């Protein structure tokens, strides 16, 4: 994240305008419409990277639809983002993009529906920041500290971790409140019976 990249807003807007072709059902086995491996191969070529290896191509053609569908859909959306003219003009992100699409999206695709990365402003921003970090960039006009802090704040993984912590704290507080209410009711009942 040492280098300044493009403005954040330009990329989040591009995501928001993701065309229906990239939101279509990815092909898994005989089902689906879009061949994800072909889309990724075209992208890597446009970014100046090496062609897809056999192993990479196979990874975008899984057989288990239930397990990989959301990830493939997110790969398509990320491919649309990476087709941005700014990235193409740099002609140096092909290899990094290949690595990112192969392994960088697995964690968030397991937690969030792919369509959210188009429809939800926070998820759009998260995906853009993840891409920039993968390429060693930060949004134009931001300091390194700001970029890191914002990515941490937006991170789905981090967010789910702290919300789980909040949920546990609430459960503990609720148990304490219930115990206090029970104790108060018992004391009131005892006082009533004495009177």
């Amino acid at each position, binding site marked *: 994240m040492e280098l300044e990249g493009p403005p954040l807003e330009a990329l989040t807007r591009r995501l928001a305008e993701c065309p229906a072709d990239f939101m279509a059902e990815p092909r898994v086995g005989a089902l689906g419409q879009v061949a994800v491996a072909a889309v990724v191969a075209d992208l890597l070529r446009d970014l100046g990277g090496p062609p897809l290896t056999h192993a990479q191509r196979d990874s975008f053609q899984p057989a288990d639809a239930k397990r990989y569908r959301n990830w493939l859909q997110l790969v398509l959306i990320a491919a649309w983002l990476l087709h941005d003219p700014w990235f193409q003009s740099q002609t140096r992100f092909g290899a990094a993009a290949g690595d990112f699409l192969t392994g960088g999206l697995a964690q968030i695709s397991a937690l969030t529906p792919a369509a959210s990365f188009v429809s939800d402003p926070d998820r759009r921003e998260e995906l853009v920041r993840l891409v920039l970090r993968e390429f060693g960039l930060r949004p134009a006009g931001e300091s390194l500290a700001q970029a890191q802090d914002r990515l941490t704040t937006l991170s789905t993984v981090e967010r789910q*971790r702290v919300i789980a912590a909040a949920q546990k704290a609430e459960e503990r507080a609720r148990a304490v409140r219930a115990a206090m209410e029970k104790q108060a009711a018992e004391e009131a009942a005892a006082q009533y019976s004495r009177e």
Partner: protein
Amino acid sequence: MTAPAPAVSPELTTLRDAWRGEWPTALGLWSKFTRLGEPRWCFTDEEAEAEGLSGSFAMIRLTDQAVVVNLALVQASQLERFGREILAHEIGHHVYTPADLDDYARLIARMRWGLPTKEHLAPLVSNLYTDLLINDRLHRIAGLSMAAVYLALGSDSTDPLWTLYMRIYEILWRLQTGTLAKGEITDALQGDAHLGARLIRSYARDWLDGSGKFAALCLPYLLENDGQATQDLLKGWRDTQNAGAGGMPHGLTEMDPGERESAQHPSLDPELSGLGQPSDKPAAGRSPSAAPVAGQGRQPFQFGEILRALGLPLSEHEAAIRYYRERAGPYLVPFPSRLRPESTEPLPEGLEPWDIGAPLEEADWTESVMLSPTIIPGMTTVQRVWGTTEGSQPKREPLDLDLYVDSSGSMPNPQVNLSYLTLAGAIVALSALRAGSRVQATLWSGARQFMTTAGFITDQHRILEILTGFFGGATAFPVHVLRDTFKDRTPSDRPAHVLVISDDGVTTMFDKDEHGASGWDVARMALERARGGGTLLLNLYGDWQANADLLRANTEQGWNVHAVRSWEELVAFARWFSRLKYGGREAQ
């Protein structure tokens, strides 16, 4: 001669002019069609206090859609350069949230469910919630730097509630951690801040639906010291603290559908927390499957607490009067009346006392002054009594109502919990007044422990005040009041219906009076001279016919006996009463 007004400092005049110039722009930020009167500019704390503003630099009044600004406090807080932000914020309270007194009351009511044991802090939490909604909208849509206002307020407080509040703003406005929030950000607080930010965006339109969740989110941070630090920090910006003073919300006696159920911590709402498996359903917004159940009735004490939270300084008794008036409203029934030939020529026949509840135009001021040069309304005022010569046009004449309300210790306190008997009494009394009847109401408990209107009046408030009163003492029916009411009643007086609200203690009305006369004789005499029938409305759990006295009262003297212990019995009674004929007997 009054003291001259203190001179206004030129700085404050300049500030007023500058802020006045920002007012149209601030209005336009919400809509070009927004119309609101210019704020009341106060130059001193005394002026502000006279407007009901104390401690805060600005406030709203929902009763007259006013914005009040204390310029002296603005200057002292060094907020002069934020005229547009602060004015736009205050306008937001009028046009966005809470917008009107009814919705403000519903907001408080919902938040109370999310704040068990801390219900009294609902006004504070509602202020935080509405401020978040308004400021976020001004930041996103109008592009105002609301964060700069909080930076100018300059708090380094590490109070957990304040830290949560500021951290929510940081997340909403993409500010770096620590820009506004200075306290320790634990994982749980960070999670709560994420949930709060998500909630503010998800419920920006249906903000009432999210209010209970926001209250539940704040609750853990209020348990230790009532969020005292946040209360102190927000002192200058408690702009809705007394927003409802002087008004009266409607529709508050019943809960909104889902009001109680929705007040859960947002971490328990998968749509807000995002915890669980990814799905194709959109994350934000309300779940259509969580259809709320129909509204339930609120108890009088809850109703009173909500009104007081709105800034209405009402006693429990006063709140109960408003509660029963509102609950009775939809159930008013036709009151027994008879057709009489209408006069073609009014004939002045004499004078009678004019009480405060009677229409003002009926008072005869000339005769009142002749009676007493010093006018005391209700005491020395009289009205002309007009006689009629019979004509051909018919006219409806209603019965009067003589109401006796048992307030002994065995009766439920109507100011705390809903009393179906009191509600039934309110329905009958208000129905009577609506039909043009006059009502005498007597609240009774032990011997010499009674309160009465001392005559048939039309003052609705006074009648409900008696009806909703509570002594909680012994049980002794005021036989002498019944006797004195009817002993001198003549056949030319308007007939009256006698309604006694009680429980099994009603049989004390058949005890001897202070002169040793039989209560049975008094009851018979009263019923005969009333000529409008009589009803005993009782909170009885057994069969009333098993009670020998009640059976005798019914068969020998003709008292109608009804038990009302539930909503169903109340409705059945109201239906029966609406069918009463003029003489107090049920229509066929």
